[in-house]
């Protein structure tokens, strides 16, 4: 029996066609061996330090939040501009050990697609990224970046034309090409072993941030805040704080995509989780200004953390996120991703004095969408 976590309470599991089961078994046993392998860990650490730019600092946002102590964990300063590279680096290293030369990924905001395309360029691997055509419109600079890096971006033109359909198409590609291909899933979603694998690759965020805040403040924060779409930056930020009972863990969902706040149990993209679904189990459309949060599902471990009460999940509207976006630009000289701006909004008004918030990515990719929405387009 595997020691990899396959289920989180009633959530998680493997709801995929039989065709994929051997590949999931192969990935799981590779991961089980590599997660404790000193050579693998050393290679990943070396790449994080010399290529990705880790550790990332924490920054006190004193003008942004004058009435409390808010620290930003600066994943926006990573190479490629978001936490997504933590996962893509680790997964591509695993794919290399599995002998897979073809890499596929899905992307919503484009950050995971860019991270995956980046690592594939670094290692000389073929890279195909599925992206909804609506997201390609909203996140055009990232589409150009992926192409510049040598990746093929395949538009997904059906359904919501966003992350949900892009993920479905990536899984269909994997079903058809599983023997040659590794699927670098971008969040802590999907069939086991992906939720554990992605969490462990993102855990570096919280591990660093916990040590950093202890060093500057001499104590743990009252609250740790992160935005939640699929939930990978949040699970990576939260995980090492779970044993710290006095630390509140606050996940912030887009109000129109609150899989945890307003969802119900269901099965999507290979796992059982809390989803935006109707009484028949049909998946419903999510709505968010932020392409990275525009997803009707969420990682199964978040559903379990919600049910157990260890983490709380709160909503944030598009307007609140936009207000925080501008506020951070104007008060700190930092342009946050719209995704991270959701976390910033709740970091400002949650009931806590010392707050650590994950600034999961930078907002360059969002400028055109913000200007379009505010009628400032060219």
């Amino acid at each position, binding site marked *: 029996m595997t020691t990899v976590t396959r289920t989180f309470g009633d959530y998680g599991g493997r709801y*995929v*066609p039989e065709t994929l*089961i051997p590949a999931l078994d192969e990935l799981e046993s590779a991961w089980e061996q590599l997660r404790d392998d000193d050579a693998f860990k050393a290679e990943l650490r070396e790449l994080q330090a010399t290529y990705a730019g880790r550790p990332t600092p924490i920054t006190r946002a004193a003008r942004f939040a004058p009435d409390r102590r808010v620290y930003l964990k600066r994943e926006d300063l990573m190479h490629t501009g978001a936490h997504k590279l933590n996962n893509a680096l680790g997964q591509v290293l695993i794919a290399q050990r599995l002998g897979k030369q073809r890499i596929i990924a899905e992307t919503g905001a484009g950050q995971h697609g860019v991270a995956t395309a980046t690592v594939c360029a670094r290692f000389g691997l073929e890279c195909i990224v599925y992206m909804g055509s609506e997201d390609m419109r909203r996140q055009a600079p990232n589409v150009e970046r992926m192409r510049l890096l040598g990746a093929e971006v395949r538009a997904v033109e*059906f359904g919501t034309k966003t992350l949900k359909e892009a993920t479905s198409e990536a899984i269909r590609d994997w079903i058809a090409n599983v023997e040659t291909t590794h699927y670098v899933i971008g969040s802590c979603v999907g069939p086991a072993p992906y939720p554990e694998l992605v969490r462990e690759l993102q855990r570096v965020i919280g591990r660093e941030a916990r040590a950093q805040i202890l060093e500057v403040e001499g104590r743990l924060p009252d609250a740790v805040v992160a935005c939640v779409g699929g939930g990978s930056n949040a699970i990576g930020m939260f995980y090492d704080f779970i044993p710290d009972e006095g630390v509140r863990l606050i996940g912030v969902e887009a109000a129109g995509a609150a899989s945890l706040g307003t969802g119900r149990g*269901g099965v999507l993209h290979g796992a059982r989780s809390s989803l935006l679904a*109707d009484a028949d189990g049909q998946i419903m459309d999510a709505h968010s200004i932020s392409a990275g949060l525009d997803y009707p599902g969420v990682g199964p471990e978040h559903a379990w953390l919600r049910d157990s009460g260890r983490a709380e999940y709160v909503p944030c509207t598009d307007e609140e996120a936009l207000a925080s976006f501008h506020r951070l630009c104007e008060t700190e000289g930092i342009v946050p991703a719209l995704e991270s701006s959701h976390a910033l909004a709740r970091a400002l008004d949650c009931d806590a004095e010392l707050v650590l918030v994950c600034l999961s990515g930078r907002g360059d990719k969002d400028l055109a969408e913000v200007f379009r929405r505010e009628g400032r387009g060219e």
Partner: protein
Amino acid sequence: MSRKTLVVYLMAMPDTPELVEAAVGAGADAIEVGFPFSDPLADGPVIRRAGERALAAGMRVGRCLEVLAQIRERVDVPLIPMTYASIYDAYGWAELEREARSAGATSFIVPDLPTDVRTDFKRIQMVAPTSTDERLRLAADATDGWLYLVTVTGTTGARAALAPTLAPLAERSRRVTDAPLYAGFGISTGEHARAAAELVDGVAVGTRAVEAAEDGPRALATLVADLRSGLDA
């Protein structure tokens, strides 16, 4: 050699009972009835779009069960609902199984439910060219009646020729089970059916049947008759 079995897949729609009657009249031995799901991972574009049309036409689970009962009034062949885990999860696994059986279902196919999940739910198991011998054995032991051999590594959809991966999969399956083997995914013509009949005990035809059904019962009957004569040749 006994007669080969022809399984035809149709998406549940208000006119499906009439289509099923035409298919059975033309030589179909069993019918898979698709209950549409918003995110069908195992399906290619044709069946995915058929599911989108069915959902737009209001084919919710309750309505699908009504159509299933109407089909049962018209034909005596095995009827097999085929839908995804999310539908069962929402409806209740035992409840949906019970209500489908009382509407006339004889077995079930859940394409995103691997053999070792929900082992208490007796259903037709699927295996694929990537399945290990161990998993073939597991599926064969658990399956309800016949074993569904997915001919390709891929999703549903018509292909130009019968996949070369079917022969080794059929051979490996024979070594572990006496259960009848039916092949599906990518079988769309009488010629494919004839080639498959040399390897397995039956075929399942989905995508091409869904396309023919869009042109009405006569077009579907013509396709089924062609598949039948391929199998019987």
